[in-house]
């Protein structure tokens, strides 16, 4: 089988994987690394459930070939919470503001929000809506997610580290 060797930083740790050429980043994360937080909601980049960060930018892991992250950094929802049960402020805000219902879209939502706040630490509600429009949710009507992201931004969740 044709396989490509990929070395990259995964949630801060240097890792290497050998996967077939046609494997997507999402497949590699879920199957090879058993990180199943990122979900396949559509496989076509239309729902955002698979959102992870590559070089701090949000991408649809379902559309990206695994080979594309060679030499890059990848962050998934599993890399957000710190040690000793400490959540990222965004995760806390999603919990506290009722932004989670069925939860299938949640990891992707949080990663999109992470990238949004990294670029724009104090987004308006409209900027949140536009910036996260690539993440679909069928349960919440989005309102509580907007609230959660706005609340996290007030708490100063801007850069990579939880504070």
């Amino acid at each position, binding site marked *: 089988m044709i396989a490509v060797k990929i070395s990259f930083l995964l949630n801060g740790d240097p890792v290497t994987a050998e996967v077939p050429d046609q494997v997507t980043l999402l497949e590699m994360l879920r199957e090879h690394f058993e990180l199943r937080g990122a979900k396949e909601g559509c496989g076509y980049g239309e729902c955002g459930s698979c959102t992870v960060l590559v070089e701090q930018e949000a991408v649809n892991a379902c559309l990206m070939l695994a080979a594309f992250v060679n030499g890059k950094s990848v962050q998934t929802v599993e890399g957000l919470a710190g040690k000793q049960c400490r959540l990222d402020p965004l995760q806390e805000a999603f919990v506290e503001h009722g932004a989670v219902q069925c*939860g299938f879209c949640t990891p992707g939502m949080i990663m999109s929000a992470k990238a949004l706040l990294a670029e724009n630490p104090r987004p308006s509600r409209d900027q949140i809506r536009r910036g996260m429009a690539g993440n679909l949710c069928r349960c919440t009507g989005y309102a509580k997610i907007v609230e959660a992201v706005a609340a996290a931004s007030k708490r100063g969740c801007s850069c990579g580290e939880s504070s």
Partner: protein
Amino acid sequence: MAKVLEPESGGVALQAVGKRLPKLDALDKVQGKAVYIHDLKMPRMLYGKILWSRHAHARILNIDTSRAEKLPGVRAVITGYNTPEIKVGFLKDNPVLKKDKVRQYRDEVAAVAAESLEIAEEAVRLIEVEYEPLPAVFDPVEAMREGAPLIHEEKGSNILKLPWKLICGDPDEGRRQADFVVEETFLLPWVTHCCLGTSGCLAEFQPGGNLTVYSPTQIRYLAQRDFLEAMAALGLKDKRVRVVSTAIGGAFGSKLDTYPFEFITILLAYYAGRPVKLVFSREEEFFATPARQKVEAKIAQGCTREGRLTFRDVEMVLDNGAYTSWGATTPSVMMMPISSLYKVPNVRYTARCVYTNNIYATAMRGYGNPQATFAIESQIDALAEQAGFDPLEFRMLNANTAGEVTPQGFKVGSCGMKECLEAVRESLNWNEKRGKRNGRGVGVGSLIHVGGGARIYKSDACGTIIKLDDFAKVTVMSGATDMGQGSDTVIAQIVAEELGVCIGDIKVIMGNTDLETWDVGAHASRTTFVAGNSALYAARSAKEQILALAASLLNEPQEDLAIKNSVVYSRRNPAVSMQLERVLRAAHFKTGGTQIVASHFYDPPTQMLDKEMKGNFSAAYTYGVHGAEVEVDRETGRVEILKYVIAMDVGKAINPMLLEGQLEGGAAMGIGYSLMENLQTEKGKVLNPNFLDYKMLTFADMPEITSIIVETGERFGPFGAKGIGEPPLVGSAPAIANAVYDATGKRVRSLPLTPEKLLFDADGSEERGGE
């Protein structure tokens, strides 16, 4: 009959109920730790894949699976010809693997289990099926005609033998009494659930023949019963079936029935002798999951000069698709608004469900009510206008009230309809904004829905088991299902309140038929009411046991004792107290000791509908009003929602934050239904099986929602609560259509309310005349 429940707080402020508490499983979900069917893996697990027909109606001449069988990694290939026949659906008209002929473009013809999904997909491509196309019919009206192709020949007709009919009073006399009458026809499209997590299940046989099915079902126990039938077909009649719930990635009614794919997975697991998981792709989810059906509704309503409704006459044709799932029984719920939304003394309703070669119909949030309410409430505006009334005033005149018995026999307990109308009037600034015809307009849509369960089956019950450990930690095992709506949390709040413990001490377990007692399923907005009451009674029973033990430990009369903050104390003399955990340990660690276990099986005080379709089939009724202010771009026909308000009589908000989540999420689905969503089919094939072309709302499309919660205190509800899962989308479409009419003078009688329909006639070809 159940007792009237009152909170046992004895006038003390509620500790847990009424609080904005986070959803219990949110912590797992924000960390990506919740396990959905997509995430589940078993040792030696195989992957299943279905071969779908690519003809809407055709005879199967031959299925050649030989090439698929030879593909390395393939472990089972099944068809209708090498497996026992299993028919599903409540009319048992749907063979899980089709033999002899296919009746829809998405029919299950064969299936494969293989070592990887890629191999399974490849194997399915290698199966060759020879078809002889048959004449097909896609329009239910055509399908009713003499000589139309028969979908099920043995039935002799495409019209289902479910003659839905309800007559209350004398509708013809009601029409004669009317000074004003409006008659119209409304059309509603196929729409679908769009669960972010696609459907799927995992089946695993234990040695000896017992079966476990992991599934995101909404009906664990009914599914167990259905799967037992499959076991019987396999000759495993006396074996056990265990259904284990995974985290549910959205349901909205889509998982309220068992479907061929689940039985196919069981068959594959059986024949392969390995666990098999089958998960739909997004495309399959769109074309293979049954949907909310297409409806044509002819409706007439009339009123007197004084504005009193005198009659309502509705005739419907429902596209059932090729097989029968829960789409065919939605008329039983459509009857509710038709007979009982507003005080209307004379009512006639008939509905025919018709087989076609389309995709088929199932339950979806609102269960027929959105279709019926769109017709009724759009027309209420037209009737009000004709009779010279402000549409909101007209609704106030005819509004339902507490204590009434509706023509269908519903005994209305609490009813906050007038309060909701007033709240929406104020929020929309109705009196100022209405009637301008300047491209901006306001509209409302009222609704009624079941709020106290719905006795569709002989039992509408839910069981709960509660146990307390030696450290006063509480485990609640509930038959209910949480699919994201927050039932876990609401049940915990009710138990916390009743037991006097904090919510952090409660764990709610749902999702294993071996552990919990029965529940009919997460439908009909019933879980807070029915599972909530079940949990409340079980908690009360546990509390009585605890207080009896504490009474002897504290030497106090039991009736004086109460629990608060996990301390048992005397209400008469609060100094006399004992930590709850000490009470529990004292009861346990002694000769002949005991641990507290309590259970309750709650069935609401309701009746099944009788032969005339009358009776009080829910213990409570939920009322609400949607209001919208819109702006219509006259050049492009685009509708912009400027303001959206929902006022909902919920009885009592157990958790206002989660409740708002239901209102906002329902509104999003309702606005999508109103403006954009449309599962388009052509000759039975779904044209838009993806999120790009099936337009559910995005973040950017969602207006701010104003939620107004009206608390009326329902006599039978847990702490006064009524059900609320479905109503938040029921009134959307008429509110928006009425607002568009107010803005433009154009009445669009079909959904979705597209720019094309605003600028052109329905077919998009001929331009409409002026205003």
